[in-house]
């Protein structure tokens, strides 16, 4: 893996939501967590497209839970961030911090 592999904006948000939710992270909770914290309505399709991309990169792992009646007998798919994913989120975070350090964003650009 290259050291230049940074997370995209939405990927970053999704990984942070997974880290916040821990064992409770699946489609519904991830979507609601993002909506609650960013006030941005996201579709479940967008969440899964991003999670699948992250899983393909090895940043996230998933497992199927048991089917439940309120889901029409369908299983939940739980997600967790892998060690590689944690490294990627840290790298992205450091890059953003480095880019924003010294900038007075509120005063200079508002």
């Amino acid at each position, binding site marked *: 893996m290259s050291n230049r592999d940074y997370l995209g904006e939405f990927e970053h948000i999704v990984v942070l939501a997974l880290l916040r939710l821990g064992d409770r992270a*699946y489609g*519904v909770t991830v979507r609601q967590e993002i909506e609650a914290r960013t006030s941005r309505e996201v*579709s479940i*399709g967008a969440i899964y497209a991003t999670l699948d991309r992250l899983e393909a990169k090895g940043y996230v792992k998933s497992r*199927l839970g048991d*089917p439940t009646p309120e889901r*029409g007998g*369908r*299983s*939940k798919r739980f997600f967790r961030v892998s060690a590689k994913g944690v490294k990627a989120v840290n790298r992205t975070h450091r890059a953003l911090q480095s880019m924003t350090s010294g900038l007075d964003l509120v005063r200079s650009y508002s």
Partner: protein
Amino acid sequence: MMTKPSLVQPPRLAVWLVNLFTPYEQSESILGDLFEEFSDLASKSGEALARRWFWRQSVKTVAHLIATGFLVVPWLIAGTVVGGWLLCWVFYWSTQKAVVALLYKYQVYAHIDAYVFWLIYAVLIERLIEPFIIGCIIAVAAKGREMVVTMTFGLIIGVWSGAGLAHFRPHWSESNFPLLLTTFVSPVMFVIGGGIVREIRSAMSRRPSATHS
């Protein structure tokens, strides 16, 4: 007071649409998540609001899945569209040759009205059945992305045919109407073929999960 779990069902058409465009491996989790939130919302805020929410989520999800299809498997889509185009030429050419050969063999040309009738209607049937078969074939090749591929292909053929028709507009006449009509129905037949393949595959993929617990 305890909230009773909602027995309200989400809009069937929306569920069908999401199922049609979702890759199999995501189908169970995406629909399950939508059902869960719908059920929760219906018991808290009422059926009308929950249905509106479900439709909004479904439309956004389908749009996202279509866009993602182009990003994730661009070569599969391009390959099946080119393959479908070649199949069209082979099918159309061979069927028209076969129809004309049959008409000559049985000497239908001796009766000019019957000849024109069979020639036109055989070509009309061909223009409806063949796109359907080609839609099925390219959908089989594009496993998991049946709808994106057949819709893209239908759109390309529709635009191509439309441009051709516009070019020959001065030669249009009333007798060409059935032919004009099938030109616009053909792209829809590709999509119907793709949809049927998708439905069959979807039903087959649900079978093993019915035993999974």
